[in-house]
């Protein structure tokens, strides 16, 4: 038994700055490559990503979140068809978890969308979380920038299947659809209070199942109780749908469009954009700082030893590493 192999020539590396005009002109290969470089955190790509960010800002970014198996990918497949009208170029970034053990992942969303994506020329990109928590990958934000700069809109983000508090999508999307499968019933509040609160639109999937109506009623009941942290004058609608038959898809699309209109007319879009920018800056600060200390810096090793031996403590060590002293912090 033997593996038959060709001898492979090294591929040539194309500078990211050369890819920027291709991305702006809509080259799918260039878009895909830039997304990979963002994911791989190539230093060489930083300037190109910065440029592309400045070209972005036109797309309507729609998040689809909810429990695993709730029907998110199937729904997006139906939305691709519904939204691919006129000049719209639809894109999808679908996130699945990386294995904490191997770092590998099986990215299973594409398979549910491939037929409608092919028919509509939509761009579908699967992405692994690579250890990032919160329901997205770190590079999801940059992937959206790249697709936005290339003229795609709407851009759908499918989060990993979420539980209670993976609400990062709220700071990545303009419109958040929380999809709940039938049968959550009375438990709905206990199960997902955090996730339910971030919905701009509630959708109950699989309306072909008898329990769907009860689930919608339970959600409406929950909304009627109100929330002290009313974020908006928008009242989140509760819709039911069945993606395979197409029932309810047009109504959902209309709700998504209405929400965009609401954001623009109420001025809330400005607030959302600001919130997204703020989260991204802070997340990047966090990431850069961690990267600096993760890199096995000698100073980190010294502090680590001191804190472990309790000759120092975590706060003092952190302040020292950041070059702060208590007088500055006061």
């Amino acid at each position, binding site marked *: 038994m033997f593996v038959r192999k060709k001898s492979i020539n090294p591929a040539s590396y194309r500078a990211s700055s050369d890819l920027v005009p291709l991305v702006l002109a809509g080259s799918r290969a260039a878009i895909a490559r830039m997304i990979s470089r963002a994911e791989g955190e190539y230093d060489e790509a930083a300037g190109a990503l910065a440029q592309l960010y400045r070209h972005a800002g036109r797309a309507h970014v729609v998040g689809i979140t909810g429990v695993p198996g709730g029907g998110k990918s199937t729904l997006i497949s139906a939305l691709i068809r519904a939204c691919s009208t006129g000049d719209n170029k639809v894109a999808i970034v679908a996130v699945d978890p990386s294995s904490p053990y*191997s770092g590998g992942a099986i990215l299973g969303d594409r398979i549910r969308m491939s037929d409608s994506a092919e028919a509509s020329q939509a761009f579908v990109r699967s992405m692994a979380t690579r250890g990032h928590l919160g329901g997205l990958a770190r590079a999801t934000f940059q992937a959206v920038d790249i697709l936005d700069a290339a003229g795609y809109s709407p851009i759908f983000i499918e989060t990993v299947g979420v539980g209670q508090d993976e609400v990062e999508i709220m700071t990545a999307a303009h419109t958040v659809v929380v999809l709940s499968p039938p049968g959550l019933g009375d438990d709905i509040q206990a199960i997902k209070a955090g996730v339910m609160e971030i919905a701009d639109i509630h959708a109950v999937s699989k309306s072909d199942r008898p329990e769907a109506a009860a689930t919608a009623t339970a959600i409406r009941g929950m909304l009627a109780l109100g929330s002290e942290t009313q974020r908006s004058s928008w009242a989140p609608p509760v819709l039911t749908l069945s993606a395979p038959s197409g029932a309810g898809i047009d109504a959902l699309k209309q709700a998504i469009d209405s929400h965009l209109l609401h954001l623009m007319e109420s001025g809330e879009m400005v607030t959302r954009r600001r919130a997204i920018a703020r989260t991204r800056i802070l997340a990047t600060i966090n990431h850069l700082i961690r990267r600096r200390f993760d890199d096995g810096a000698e100073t980190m090793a010294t502090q680590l030893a001191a804190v472990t031996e309790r000759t120092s403590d975590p706060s003092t060590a952190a302040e020292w590493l950041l070059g702060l002293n208590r007088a500055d912090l006061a």
Partner: protein
Amino acid sequence: MTLGRDEDKMAGPEPQPTPSIRVLVAKLGLDGHDRGAKVVARILRDAGMEVIYSGLYKTPAQVVDAAIQEDVDVIGVSLLSGSHVPLFGALCKSLRDQQADHVLVVAGGVIPEHDYDALIESGVDAIIPQEAGSELIITAIRDLVAARGRI
């Protein structure tokens, strides 16, 4: 995160953490045998790779389209139908036509040895024999990607 051992062999403008290897596991043509494809997907996932599965009954053009959008390093085709010669020929031609021939093509499934030359000739980069174990599959793919270097 993955593949540390190949890091020093990777070409590229600056030394950096090696990105995860991305693989599209694909089924071409009228071939409903999907057990092997699913087994391979899991093997590669457990080896730290990011795996996308195409689903059944895809045309070469559909597979190439997905490979470009996903920017995979490797298309791993699982083929048990006996139509490997024409299908791999069409796949590799489509990759060249789309200027995507940096994507490595690895063949697996039921492929008789007397067809190996024809497949290599048409552009396939490696053929994995059916009885190969997971170690051999993983090493073959890592070595190919390392030899090609960063893109």
